[in-house]
């Protein structure tokens, strides 16, 4: 059993490192992206082996749902921009990719020059060697697990990671929500968005799948959020699942949906941070310190913040995927 587990670890890690290496060595960007999606899948298995089902859940939602779609759509945006610049006319039908022309160069990176080989290799080897040496000589310690375990009864929840995220180190989560919002503001500052056009779906299969998947995704998101108080799950994972479902809807919708109006969208996006800040300030006034809760109020407040954070993360991920300020809110 143990020997087999070690073999599994070795094969998995060899696969992960090999996939990362081939991904970074690709001249074809599409190949690199597919390898990166596979890399995410193998990483989720590694997180499972490291007894981190919470991380595996987040990696599953983000790696399978969001990063892949984001990278594939970015490649297509690059291709379409390059096509337009090279032909000097708007890119109307999709470019014929079998034609032998420079358009495809948008998705191609020539192999690197020889003269950077040795310096880069030396640098990477030195850094990697130092890291490995440091990690191998690190003293054994149990980390903060006993401390967290000793304080679980005041946290208001039964799952240690949720307790750390939303009670013991709540400022991390608060600042993380702020960073997501700042990334979104950065993307919005680049201009209005390139909306992926709605298209009539060819055949009944895609609409049928959407009708099955989107409700199940919403139920799963709510379930994962609810599970977070006592088992692996929580606001990030639920937000990522709902965000991925939203991205699926943006990609596959057969009709132009009505644009989300500006004010509710902005309210939803900032809701998580705003509610967190309000609760934090209340804690400061009430004498529990910034982002501290009274023990009796911990559970309801955590649930309230998690619901708002889930919605904000989901909306922000969809908005980051669309990339760009919504059209039609010049006012």
């Amino acid at each position, binding site marked *: 059993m143990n020997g087999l587990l070690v073999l599994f670890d070795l094969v*998995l890690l060899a696969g992960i490192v090999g996939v990362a290496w081939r991904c970074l060595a690709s001249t074809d960007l599409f190949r690199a992206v597919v390898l990166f999606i596979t890399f995410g899948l193998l990483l989720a*298995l590694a997180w499972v082996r490291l007894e981190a089902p919470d991380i595996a859940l987040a990696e*599953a939602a983000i790696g*399978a749902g969001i990063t892949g779609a984001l990278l594939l759509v970015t490649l297509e945006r690059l291709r379409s921009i390059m096509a337009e610049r090279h032909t000097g006319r708007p890119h109307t039908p999709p470019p014929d990719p079998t034609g032998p022309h420079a358009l495809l160069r948008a998705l191609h990176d020539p192999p690197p020059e020889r003269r950077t080989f040795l310096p880069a290799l030396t640098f990477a080897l030195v850094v990697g060697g130092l890291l490995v040496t440091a990690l191998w000589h690190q003293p054994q310690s149990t980390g903060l697990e006993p401390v967290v375990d000793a304080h679980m009864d005041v946290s208001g929840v039964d799952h240690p990671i949720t307790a750390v995220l939303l009670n013991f180190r709540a400022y991390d989560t608060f600042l993380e929500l702020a960073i997501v919002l700042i990334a979104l503001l950065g993307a919005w500052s680049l201009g209005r968005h390139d909306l*992926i056009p709605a298209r009539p779906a060819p055949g009944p299969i895609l609409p049928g799948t959407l009708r099955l*998947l989107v409700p199940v995704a919403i139920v799963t998101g709510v379930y994962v959020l609810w599970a977070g108080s006592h088992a692996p799950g929580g606001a990030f994972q639920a937000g990522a699942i709902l965000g991925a479902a939203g991205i699926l809807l943006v990609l596959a919708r057969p009709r132009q949906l009505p644009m989300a109006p500006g004010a509710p969208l902005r309210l939803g996006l900032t809701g998580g941070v705003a509610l967190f800040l309000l609760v934090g300030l209340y804690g400061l006034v009430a004498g529990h310190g910034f982002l501290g809760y009274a023990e009796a109020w911990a559970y309801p407040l955590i649930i309230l913040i998690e619901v708002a954070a889930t919605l904000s993360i989901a909306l922000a991920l969809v908005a980051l995927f669309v990339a760009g300020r919504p059209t039609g809110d010049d006012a």
Partner: protein
Amino acid sequence: MSVFYLAAALFLLGTILLGLIRVLRGPGSGDRMLAAQLFGTTGVTILLLLSMTLEESALIDVALVFALLAVVAAVAFVRQHGLPEPPDTPTHRRNPESTESRESNDDR
């Protein structure tokens, strides 16, 4: 029993690593995407087997999320074509009619 599950999971991991040859060779992007799709299914199966070996029922939820979102990358791959021109300049402001006509061209 759990040794059997682990051996099965190891076997499936081996099929993923073998299937990577198709991603590396291509030749078309469709082939690469199909390989990624197969990896997704195999990954779900490995997760189910590992949840039995490690006796961690939360892994079934991880497998559920993978199964739920397995289609997103494939949909992105197919539906990405025909993005509109940069909408940043006033002449390129979007209007619904032109979108419709362009799309009907695409789908021919």
